């Protein structure tokens, strides 16, 4: 007998792979709905990291001994694994970073700082996470380039007309999120890339929220840079990826200087290693890279199309279920959205809501989700967000909706008493 759902995923079995899900919080089974912040880790990832430290731990690219060879081989195999996962032909385009934030900063400092001139323009959007906005705000100050911010439509989608209008002869870079971490909007990054390339601009895609949840190919998108974190896709914390076209990387100076990234060092002058190692100064997070490769194996074993289909079903169900709770307003597109639902409840601050839900074992995120300009645009200070991963169930969404009804009753009652 199979327990697979209509999409072909046996969610109950998948849940068994995640030790952290097997616990009670405040006397209730944990309902973990903060996956856009970070996902839980499957045993396969935890054990891949542990196995590396148990047996193969050595520094990479310099130790002339067996363990060093093993560590280097595993690290470089992880790089190839990442390249395959994102549809990049050449592993030389894969730079390991700490996270998506560091990956974007790498582009900002190693490309932007040297290439942008006063009057040049960077086009970005109102729905960016701070990590794809602040580096450009800073670089524009240092270079005299201008940041142009494209707005969103009523329904929370990118205003494509405004985007087209924002592109100009001085546009050098378009920096855009693939999937908004607040609205759940999926941006048409392939079309955006085509439009930007027509104007001679490069394109950086922040894929922190998309890589974990949908099949994705940098070749199909056609972009020039793509950044994401490992920890949002079942991988370890402290490992992220910048993918860039290798010829762009070759033309860029290093971001950080120090060990490992050199070819030859003299007191007078130094030369740099080939790409991608030129951008990996210091001892890298080898265990993290190996854990990330294990996470990619894990996702591929379930099937990325199946993961995307299941999460789309969850998103649709959650948008309807949470949206129908009295007093709740849901943001973002109603359909074809990423696996997250951001909402506010009338009369209940998101913090108070989050504390209430936590008492029921339900973990959501409350705050501005590192997207303050977007919250300003939506006219709210903070919001609540439930975000999903492959191991979540419709029953968990029902539990959330039921707890939301209770929260509304509780706060209406206690605040009402105070009134």
């Amino acid at each position, binding site marked *: 007998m199979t327990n697979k759902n209509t999409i072909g995923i046996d969610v109950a079995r998948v849940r068994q792979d995640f030790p952290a899900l097997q616990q009670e919080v405040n006397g209730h089974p944990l309902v973990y709905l903060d996956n856009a912040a970070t996902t839980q880790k499957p045993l396969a990832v935890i054990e891949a990291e542990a196995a590396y430290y148990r047996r193969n731990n050595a520094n990479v690219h310099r130790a002339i001994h067996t363990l060093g060879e093993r560590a280097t081989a595993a690290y470089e195999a992880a790089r190839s694994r990442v390249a395959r996962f994102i549809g990049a032909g050449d592993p030389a385009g894969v730079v390991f970073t700490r996270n998506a934030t560091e990956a974007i900063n790498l582009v900002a400092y190693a490309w932007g700082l040297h290439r942008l001139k006063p009057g040049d323009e960077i086009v970005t959007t109102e729905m960016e996470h701070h990590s794809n906005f602040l580096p450009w705000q800073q670089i524009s100050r240092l270079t005299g380039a201008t940041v142009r911010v494209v707005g969103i439509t009523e329904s929370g989608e990118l205003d494509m007309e405004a985007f087209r209008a924002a592109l100009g002869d001085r546009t050098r870079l378009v920096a855009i999120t693939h999937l908004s971490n607040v609205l759940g909007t999926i941006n048409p990054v392939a079309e955006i890339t085509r439009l930007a390339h027509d104007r001679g601009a490069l394109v950086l895609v922040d894929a922190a929220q998309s890589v974990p949840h949908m099949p994705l190919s940098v070749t199909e998108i056609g972009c020039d840079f793509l950044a994401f974190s490992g920890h949002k896709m079942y991988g370890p914390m402290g490992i992220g990826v910048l993918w860039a076209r290798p010829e762009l990387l070759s033309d860029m100076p290093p971001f950080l200087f120090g060990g490992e990234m050199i070819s030859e060092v003299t007191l007078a002058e130094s030369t740099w290693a080939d790409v991608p190692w030129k951008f990996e100064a210091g001892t890298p997070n080898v265990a993290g890279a190996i854990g990330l490769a294990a996470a990619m194996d894990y996702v591929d074993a379930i099937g990325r199309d199946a993961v995307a289909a299941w999460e789309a079903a969850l998103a649709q169900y959650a948008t309807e279920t949470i949206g129908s709770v009295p007093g709740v307003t849901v943001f973002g597109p109603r359909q074809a959205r990423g696996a997250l639902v951001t909402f506010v409840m009338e009369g209940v601050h998101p*913090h108070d809501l989050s*504390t209430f839900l936590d*008492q029921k074992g339900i973990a959501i995120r409350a705050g501005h989700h590192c997207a303050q300009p977007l919250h300003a645009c939506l006219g709210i*200070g*903070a919001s609540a967000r439930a975000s999903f991963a492959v191991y979540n169930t419709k029953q968990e969404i029902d539990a959330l909706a039921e707890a939301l009804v209770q929260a509304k009753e509780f*706060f209406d009652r*206690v*605040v009402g008493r*105070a*009134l």
Partner: protein
Amino acid sequence: MSLEELYKEVILDHYAHPRNHGQVEHPTAEVHLHNPSCGDDIYLDVAVKDGTITEARFRGAGCSISQASASMMTESVQGMTVDRARRLVTSFHAMMRGEGTVQDGSPDLVALAGVAKFPVRVKCALLAWDALQKALDQAEGENLHDGQKA
């Protein structure tokens, strides 16, 4: 720790009816503090005369804990000397670490003692008090400045 213990009626009363909401006409110090992790926001105006807080008023947006705490704080420090208000800030911090309850200020303040059991919410309760500390620093710096001028 139950939700009822955190959300005591007196806290929600301050949330629903914040005391000293608004601006001080001629403030000695104005502080704007923002909790970057969650977006809670407070504007605090304080008037200090001869070492005594003559008026404290706030505006802002945030959760029930942050707003109630701001309301109780302003209620507590009206008419207090700056030194006494600073001691109250210290003992409020101690209460948020779960070390006893405050003995001074508004009697309502002890209702916030339960926040210590919810570590992630402590910063909500502290925002107004951090603003007060800054405002008092500002006010005293101002006085020092005036003294130097004279």
